[in-house]
C-alpha cells in the first residue's frame, strides 16, 4: 500500500504552480494582457464563485491534461491507478492549501464538499471524480455530498446560464468547497456555484486540479514558457510569487 506522498510525488515532475498577479486572470489564473485584470470569459460571464484555486496549469496534450482526460475513459486497471494518483494529489494539496482557499473566500472553513456533475448524464452516474473526492481523499470524503444535478432545462453547453444545474436540497448558510478536475472556460464551475447559492449556500469557492491552457491561443506558449517547470507542494497559486 502506497502513501499519499509516494503516489503524488511524481506529479511534481509535470505540474506547474499557477501564477497570480500581473498578467494573470484574477479569477482563473490564465494568462491575460497586462492591461486586463481578468480574462475575457471571467470578465464577461457572471462570477458566482468567491475564490478559485487551480492546483496546476494543465497544458493541452501535456501529461497532466492527458491524465485528467484519461482517468475517465482509459481501460479499467490504468484508470483505477490514475484515479488513486489524482486522489493523492488532491489529498496532499488540500492538506497544505485548503486553508489558503478558505482565507481567499473570507471564511475559516468549508462545511460541505461537492463536485461539478459531468456534462453527460449517463457518465455522471459513475463519475470517477466523485469516487476521488467522496471516497478516497481523506480531507474531503467525510464532508462530501452529491448535491448537484443537471437541471432539465436545456442550456448552451459553454454558456453561463445559471439554470444548468440544480441543488437537491436546501443549503442554508453552508460554505461549500466545489471541486472539479479541469477548468477550461469556467462556465460549468460558475454555474454550479450559482445553483449552490440559489439553494442557500452562503459562499462557494472552487478547487480544480488543472487550469487548462491551450498553447496555441494568443501568446500562451510564450507565457507558459515563463512559468518555471517546477512544482512545490509548499506553494499554491494564491501564494505564488
Amino acid at each position, binding site marked *: 500500500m502506497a502513501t*499519499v506522498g509516494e503516489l503524488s510525488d*511524481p506529479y511534481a515532475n509535470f505540474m506547474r504552480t499557477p501564477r497570480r498577479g500581473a498578467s494573470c486572470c484574477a479569477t482563473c489564473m490564465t494568462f491575460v494582457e497586462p492591461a486586463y485584470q481578468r480574462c475575457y470569459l471571467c470578465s464577461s460571464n457572471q462570477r458566482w464563485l468567491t475564490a478559485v484555486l487551480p492546483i496546476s496549469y494543465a497544458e493541452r496534450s501535456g501529461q497532466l491534461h492527458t491524465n485528467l482526460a484519461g482517468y475517465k475513459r482509459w481501460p479499467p486497471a490504468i484508470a*483505477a491507478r490514475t484515479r488513486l494518483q489524482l486522489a493523492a494529489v488532491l489529498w496532499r494539496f488540500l492538506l497544505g492549501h485548503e486553508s489558503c482557499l478558505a482565507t481567499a473566500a473570507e471564511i475559516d472553513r468549508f462545511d460541505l464538499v461537492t463536485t461539478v456533475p459531468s456534462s453527460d448524464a449517463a457518465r455522471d452516474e459513475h463519475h470517477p471524480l466523485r469516487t476521488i473526492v467522496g471516497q478516497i481523499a481523506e480531507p474531503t470524503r467525510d464532508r462530501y455530498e452529491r448535491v448537484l444535478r443537471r437541471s432539465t432545462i436545456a442550456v448552451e453547453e459553454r454558456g453561463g446560464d445559471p439554470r444548468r444545474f440544480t441543488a437537491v436540497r436546501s443549503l442554508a448558510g453552508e460554505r461549500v468547497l466545489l471541486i472539479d478536475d479541469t477548468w477550461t472556460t469556467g462556465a460549468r464551475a460558475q454555474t454550479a456555484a450559482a445553483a449552490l447559492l440559489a439553494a442557500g449556500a452562503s459562499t462557494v469557492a472552487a478547487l480544480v486540479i488543472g487550469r487548462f491552457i491551450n498553447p496555441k491561443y494568443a501568446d500562451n506558449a510564450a507565457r507558459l514558457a515563463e512559468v518555471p517547470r517546477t512544482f512545490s507542494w509548499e506553494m499554491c497559486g494564491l501564494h505564488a510569487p
Partner: protein
Amino acid sequence: MFVATTVNHTSPNLETAALIALLRAPGARWQQIADDVEEAGSARQVLDRGPTGEQASMFGEGAASEDLTAHIADLGAWAREGMSVLTVLDADYPENLRTVYDRPPLIFVAGDLCPEDSRSVAVVGTRRPTGDGITRARRIAHHLAASGYTVASGLATGIDTTAHTAALEVGGRTVAVIGTGLRRAYPRENAGLQARIAKEGAVISQFLPDAPPTRRSFPMRNGVMSGLALATVVVEAGEISGSRMQARLALQHNRPVFLLRSLLEHDWAASMERRPGVYVVDEPEQITEAIQRLTSTALPTA
C-alpha cells in the same frame, strides 16, 4: 476490392491505412495526429478534414478522399511478413503506452504482445558495460522475469542485450523496442536476437518497417520504451546516453525511475536522485516492491 467507393468508417483496416496516410504526409506531427485521431475516434475523419492552416487552400475541399489503395497494399505486405500494426484506435494498443502524452499514433509489432506485457519494466544501460554492470543487469532481469514482469529493453549491444537474454534464459518474457523499422536490425550482430525475441516475445517499432537508424530515432524509441513500461531501471550509463534520456522521459511520463546506487558517481544521476519519483536501489527486490506499492489498488495512507 478496396477502391474507395463506399467507405466504412468502422473498418479497422481502412482506419489503419488512413492513419498511415496521415503519418506519411509531409510535415506530419505525430503527437498532434495521435491526439486528433483519438479525439475524433477515427483516422478517416481526420484525413478527410484535410490539411489545416495555410496548406488547406492549396488542396481545396476535395483533397479529402485520398486514395488509400497503396497504404492498404503495404499493410497486406507487412502482415504477410508477420508484422502487425496497432493504432491508438485499437483496443489492444498497449495500455501503458496509451497513457503517455507523447504516445505514437501507431506501433509495428513483430511477434505477439500479450495483456501480461502491461507488467513490463524497462531495463536499460550503456553499450559498453563493465563486468559488474553486466552482472547487475542479469540479476535484475532474472528477478523481474521470475516475479512475472516482462523485461523491456532496446536491443542495443551491452546492457540491453544482457537484459533481453537474461530474461529469455530463465524462460521469462521480453519485449524489444527498437530505433529502426522492423525490417532492419541495428546493430547488425543483434539480428539473431531480434528474430528470437520476435518469436518468443515481441519486437516493437514506431517507425515504418524500412526506416533507417537516425540521430533522432533512438531518443524517440526511448520515449516509447518508457511509455510501454511501468518503470525504467537504469543499470549503468554515462553523462551522454540514451538511458539518461529515457530516465528523464520516464519522469515526464509519470513513471518511476530506478537508479542503481553505483550510478551516483555520475553527476547526472546524483542530480536526478533528488527528483520526485526517483528511487536509488541496491537490490532487485527493491524495484519490484516499489512497483507493487505504486500499482496497488489499495487506498493510499496518509
